[in-house]
């Protein structure tokens, strides 16, 4: 929503604000490069959906600072997204194919959802399997971002017993010996900040530092380590039933094995997050999220089931 001059001013202001901050810190050379940013090089995001629920896209709209609208017009350009694009049908396919064929300039491929490796026709765009577009894009894209746990690791559509053989984007490329790095931003859904700040980092300072393929700034610590109920855990003040306060570990909280900054970042404009609502973390940012039948989210019936069955 800003013109280019405004963008440059803002980018400079942002750089000043980021200076020295952890994760977002700019190297001096990057800061110098900022003054030379050509706004036409604002990353163009080509968003395609696989086996997804659109929850991550909807989550991206919940961003506060900057807002989603600022992000897609000012800090990046959204060249296509099925939920927002005015265009459709053959006109939309012409645009998508122009980018994927490398005829419309640089772009970052942003994928939401998993890929049905064993059943390609379980996800179709314009009569062709989703996989078809991913293979072609691998040649032309500047980079790839896997948005949400499905795109990162398959998770829900890849749950045990699934019929489609769903996998994440990085594994999809690995299986084809395509050597393209994928930045994984997990979460079911993703937190909007995790994605938008990664995009901002890409444009302002290059690729962010990654840990296990995900931006270190958001995924370097276990949720449990910075949980405000850590003290309850230490004091062995455990919730005994759903709805209780206290540490939720004994109800099945997966905070101790889930890497994400939910306790400090919070969700939806900071109004809440799962544990704040006395709801155990179900590990939605974890690569193993929801995969195994033998690992239920809650421990309420766990003992009972094994005893009686």
């Amino acid at each position, binding site marked *: *929503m800003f*013109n280019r001059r*405004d963008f440059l001013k803002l980018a400079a202001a942002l750089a000043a604000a980021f200076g020295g901050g952890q994760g977002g810190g700019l190297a001096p050379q990057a800061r110098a490069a900022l003054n030379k940013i050509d706004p036409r090089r604002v990353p163009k995001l080509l968003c395609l*959906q696989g086996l*997804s*629920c*659109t*929850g991550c896209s*909807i*989550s991206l709209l*919940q961003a506060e600072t900057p807002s989603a*609208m600022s992000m897609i*017009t000012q800090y990046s*350009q959204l*060249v296509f997204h*099925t*939920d*927002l*694009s*005015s*265009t*459709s*049908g053959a006109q*939309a396919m012409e645009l998508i194919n*122009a980018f994927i064929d490398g005829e419309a*300039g640089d772009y970052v491929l942003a994928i939401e959802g998993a890929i*049905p490796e064993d*059943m390609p*026709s*379980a*996800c*179709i*765009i*314009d009569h062709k399997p989703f996989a078809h577009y991913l293979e072609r894009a691998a040649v032309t894209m500047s980079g790839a971002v896997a948005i949400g746990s499905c795109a990162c690791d398959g998770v829900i559509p890849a*749950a045990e*017993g*699934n019929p*489609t053989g769903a996998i994440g984007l990085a594994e999809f490329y690995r299986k084809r010996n395509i050597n393209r790095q994928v930045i994984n931003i997990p979460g079911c*859904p993703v937190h909007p900040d995790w994605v938008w700040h990664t995009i901002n980092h890409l444009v302002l300072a290059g690729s962010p530092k990654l840990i296990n393929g995900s931006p270190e700034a958001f995924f370097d610590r276990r949720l449990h380590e910075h949980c405000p109920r850590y003290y309850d855990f230490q004091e062995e003040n455990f919730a005994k*039933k*759903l*709805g209780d306060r206290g540490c939720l570990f004994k109800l099945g909280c997966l905070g101790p094995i889930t890497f994400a900054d939910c306790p400090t970042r919070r*969700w*939806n*404009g900071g*109004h*809440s*997050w*799962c544990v704040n*609502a006395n*709801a155990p973390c*179900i590990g*939605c940012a974890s690569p193993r999220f929801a995969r195994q*039948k033998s690992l*239920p*989210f*809650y421990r*309420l019936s766990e003992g009972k*089931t094994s005893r009686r*069955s």
Partner: protein
Amino acid sequence: MKIDIGPITRIEGHLNVQTTVENGVVTDARCEGEMFRGFEIFLRGRDPLDSQQITQRICGVCPYAHAIASSMAQENAYRLSVPPNGRILHNLIQGANHLYDYLLHFYQLCALDYVDITSVLEYSGKDPELSRVRDWVRAEIDSGQRYPATPFLPRLSGRYLNDRDTNLGAIKNYLEAMSMEKKANQAAAIFGGKFPHATSIFPGGCTQEARVDLIVPYQSLISEVRDFIHNKYIPDVLAVAGAFPEYWEIGRSRGGFLSHGHLPLGPRPDNERLLAAGVMFDGRVEAVNFDQIRQHVNSSLYSSPTNLQVRDAAITPQPDKSGAYSWIMAPRYAGKMVEVGPAARIMVDYAQGHNQAVKELTDRLTGRAGVRVSQLNSVMGRHLSRAILAAVLADFLLEESQRLTPGEPTMAAIDPPASAEGFGATEASRGALLHYIRIENYKIAKYECVVPTTWNASPRDDQGQPGAMESALIGTRVNNPEEQIESKRIVRSFDPCLACAVH
């Protein structure tokens, strides 16, 4: 001439519609659901309490509706008695989700079919937001890029609004709606933990507490959204309706209407609801009987038996099945096609003279538009229905939040039995949603979801009857058969969600 108009954007998910156009008229339409994950398959064998979490991931646009339907199905199965606070919190969470969803649908998903975004280039006033949009669009168009001002351009050919002030007002409200949608979701997240995909919703209630420091922020956020609904959303719908009056006739579905009823007014799911349940054929409303619902699969990509009741549901994918053209099944009520969604919710409630606020607002706004209540079955009717429901719901949520008793329990104690079965029915923003769970040996033995867009975007059933959306498309006159902005306005008026429809 057969023309595919997909991929259809500004809906959820993967949908193509194959149309047949003769002499500028759509003579046939086939809705092709193009994505399949298999929830009902991988839910089998899981812990039943996983289901209100897993089924939310069917749809990230309306996850709470699935959480509530699943919770109600389990409450029914476990014979749970939900404390009043628990049911109220369910209503507050799900209701706030509807408000966001109606605004998202009208502004982000549909407005670009009617509003002329390029009119912003003529803006010469002082509003900072509109000036920024203007400068951005101008800079984009001047940049020489092959595709400037995405995602708002390019767009299909067709007639757009030509009144400059209406266009500018709508563009401004497009932006403001996005912040209102966030506020509605923030209100929901206060009790839900987060949006999308709440972790606090359980059968038996909600883990969040009923505390004054949560209730008041909820009310404050919903009040802001309520004001936007009355001052911007309803006038914008009426303005678009006034400029496109032909859409009160276009997009009429040719079957009955089904609503499961929305928001129980007491702790039990079978308590009276804010909006009454019912199935309506030829203007007559009957009580809903779940045993009358059967899912046909002759046109769907499954080898499992057809015409099964919900309880007996089966699902075996067969991607190469000949003669089938969609992953969507074709549910039918007593063998007949029905439309579900906002228009169905209003017409079913109105015909029973049930909710006075619905009746009063429906009479007033259809009166102002100069149309009959039966014309809610149309493109504009579906838009107006959402606006009416948003207004009624916002008032209800503010009242309902005052019924919470701070300090009282919000959750029942849960003790899932070894074997049980239950139905849970509610209204997602897109229409009637039914979940069924059967538990054997403490595990899910069967789970079945009959979801709004499964009804609306269904393919031909075993008798060859088209689905509601297919029937609404057939007979439509289109100016540009390759693009068909008219058909897309019809499809979008149903607010299809393909992730829901197939799951």
